[in-house]
């Protein structure tokens, strides 16, 4: 039964996460919460998912499935996240190959990207609240430094996370 719930949750996440990269996070945040992965733990597994190979969204699904129902749960979560999209992909390659340069596809993403930006921003705000970031001046310092290094200097997430962790060991 729990496996069925996992399958359904990650099916939704997989099929609705349009827009690449972190687009899966807002949906995952909600679905993982259903299985008791909330607040700080969610933030922690995003960090782990960043540091292990593979797409962050798929990694988060695997972790959630594993925590809720062991190895079998991990298999169900990963498969239900990936398989339906893979089938859609095959159909897309067959059907839409001719229309690849269609201006409408471009226009669609111009609009939809704005939606994705809003949703990812919500995910970030909820995560900041969950870890009590606003009340923690040390945390705010790490946040601002990481934001600057990541955005302006394009530092890769892995060294950024490791450095922040090392700093955490020193100052907390």
């Amino acid at each position, binding site marked *: 039964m729990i496996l069925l719930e996992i399958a359904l949750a990650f099916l939704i996440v997989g099929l609705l*996460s349009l827009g690449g990269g972190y687009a899966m996070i807002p949906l995952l945040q909600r679905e993982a919460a259903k299985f008791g992965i909330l607040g700080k733990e969610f933030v922690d597994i995003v960090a782990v998912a960043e540091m292990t190979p593979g797409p962050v969204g798929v990694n988060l699904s*695997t972790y959630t499935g594993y925590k809720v129902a062991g190895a079998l749960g991990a298999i169900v979560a990963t498969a239900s996240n*990936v398989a339906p*999209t893979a089938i859609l992909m095959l159909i897309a390659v067959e059907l839409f190959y001719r229309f*690849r340069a269609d201006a409408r*596809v471009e226009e669609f993403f111009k609009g939809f990207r704005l*939606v994705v930006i809003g949703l990812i921003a919500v995910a970030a705000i909820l995560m900041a609240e969950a870890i009590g970031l606003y009340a923690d001046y040390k945390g705010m310092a790490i946040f601002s430094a*990481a934001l600057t290094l990541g955005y302006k200097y394009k530092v890769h997430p892995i060294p950024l996370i490791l450095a922040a962790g090392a700093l955490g060991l020193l100052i907390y």
Partner: protein
Amino acid sequence: MGMEGYRHGRCLELFSIFSKISTFTLGGGLAMIPLIEREVVERKGWVDGEEFLDLVGIAQSMPGAMAINLSTCVGYKVAGVRGAMSASLGAVLPPFLSILLAASFLLAVRDSPIVERFFEGVRPAVVALIAVSVLRLSRAAGIGKRTAAIPIAIVLVVLISGIHPMYVVAIGIGASALWAIARARRVAI
């Protein structure tokens, strides 16, 4: 060698190429594109350069993780449905195993004070990484005063109402599709 044996060999090759690439690319989707291109376009010559770009375009416009989408469609182009399965399985397996390892490790050490202090420092950086992606996407989308209204409205509505993001995605898909069709028509006239 018959067609069957030929395809079988290609499936194995696809599996090994994509599992290798996905083992060694940290940081997900976009980092994998040049590696896949080198193997599939330059070394193997399975797909030509322009076709590869089209496949990247399709992979990006479908839901799900881009890297896995790209593996699926390259595999399909090279060896049909079985090729698609071999390539995507190859791309999924290494991260799957590494997350299982990391999860069992993390769940075992979570209560250690040292680990807790480490994550205490990591958490603000993770929020910053997500914020970085918001900034990057905004810049890529060329957000101006008018277009900024949409993400801002979404932030307010979702935070205040607590609506599940999947409804916002569904409405967003519908609205963007209508907008795209309307724009195309106007251009055509």
